[in-house]
């Protein structure tokens, strides 16, 4: 090893930055994606339009998107969060929509037929039944964001990608792994943890 590895406290700091970045992005994407999913479920006319737009946003390579955001937002965590939100909306929107679509027509007709208002049908029946699929969307968004957030270190957003960048620049494998391994572990544990949560969300199955 050419240079000494950073202190443990620096690892923790970058890990926190990484979680912070991902957490804010997924939270904002949920706040946008879930209501949007509910809305286009009720207004199917706009479905192709909106899903198309979100899909196109998804195909932009992450590095290109970050470069594109630079002139508008500068460097730092802001453009990083914006990019991560753009990527996270698709799985959350799709999960919400899939979940709502899977609610059987019999069940929603029965709900209406016994006198539930639109909002009661949504909160009491449709959303609880769509929740497992919706949470699955959030899970996918989390895993993607953890991965993409490592790239955001290029524009000075911090996070575990910082170690990877420095490791690459200094040709220091130890430093590189100090970013890569915690990032991978973070992604795996989020995937596992939210997967566990999903089982609790449908006690009737």
């Amino acid at each position: 090893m050419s240079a000494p590895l950073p202190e443990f406290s620096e690892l923790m700091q970058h890990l926190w930055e990484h979680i912070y970045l991902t957490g804010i992005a997924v939270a904002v994407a949920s706040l946008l994606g879930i209501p949007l999913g509910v809305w286009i479920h009720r207004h199917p006319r706009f479905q192709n339009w909106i899903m198309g737009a979100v899909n196109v946003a998804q195909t932009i390579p992450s590095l290109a998107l970050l470069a594109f955001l630079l002139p508008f937002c500068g460097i730092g965590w802001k453009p990083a969060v914006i990019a991560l939100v753009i990527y996270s909306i698709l799985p959350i929107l799709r999960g919400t929509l899939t979940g709502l679509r899977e609610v059987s027509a019999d069940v929603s007709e029965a709900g209406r037929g016994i006198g539930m208002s639109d909002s009661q049908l949504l909160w009491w029946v449709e959303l609880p039944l769509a929740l497992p699929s919706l949470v699955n969307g959030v899970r996918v968004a989390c895993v993607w964001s953890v991965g993409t957030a490592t790239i955001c270190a290029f524009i000075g957003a911090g996070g575990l990608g910082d170690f990877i960048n420095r490791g690459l620049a200094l040709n220091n494998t130890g430093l590189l792994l100090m970013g890569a391994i915690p990032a991978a572990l973070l992604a795996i544990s989020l995937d596992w943890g939210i997967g566990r949560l999903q089982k609790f969300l449908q006690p009737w199955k």
Partner: protein
Amino acid sequence: MIRIHDVSKSFDGGKTLVVRGVNLDIPSGEWLVLLGSSGSGKSTLLKMINRLVVGFGGRIEVDGNDIGGIDHVALRRSIGYVSQGIGLFPHWTVEQNVAAVPRLLGASSLRQRERSHELLKLMELDPSLYAGRFPSQLSGGQRQRVGVARALAGEPGYLLMDEPFGALDGVTRDALQQRMLELKRSLGKTVLFVTHDLFEAMTIADRIAVMHEGALAQVGTPSELLHAPATPFVKDLFRKPLGQLQRLGAKI
């Protein structure tokens, strides 16, 4: 009293009529069966009464009020509804399903529970066994019983039943029909029951309204329809099953 006055419905802007010019009065306390083959418009007509199907010509009155002028949510809470696929809420227990309408009407949780258990007993399901189960843990016949219990829980004056026993085997269906008949007097409801099964119609009905291609072919008591069919269609409708029975009798 439900009055259906010159009601028509089209789903394609008037090209084809699913229901055409139906006039029908259902006096309070009567059990009226809408009998017809699939596509005859009987379910559509039923769903107009609780405004699950809207945008039709003509006029429907419930207790003298035009349903177009009543808030549809309030209207539906005052009319019990059992749909074709039952549509129990899979994420709610049997108790919660049955208590749905009392809950919508703002009953206390204690009252919801009481009412739910009362109705489960009425439908011959032991609350101590079934109240805590989810619909996926019930048999088809038990689900139907829960569906009927749910429809009765808000103490509605009217009950709309859309082929409620259609998916059941003969034995289970017979048991449920008998239970409904036992309850007929004590319930004191006005019931509109849709079926394509002639025997079910004959068993349950005070009067039968035969629907054919969207129009009413004949309305009358089961024996009137059997002995004095007004159209060749009605005559055929009754003759075929009777012929089948006779052939079976001869074989045995």
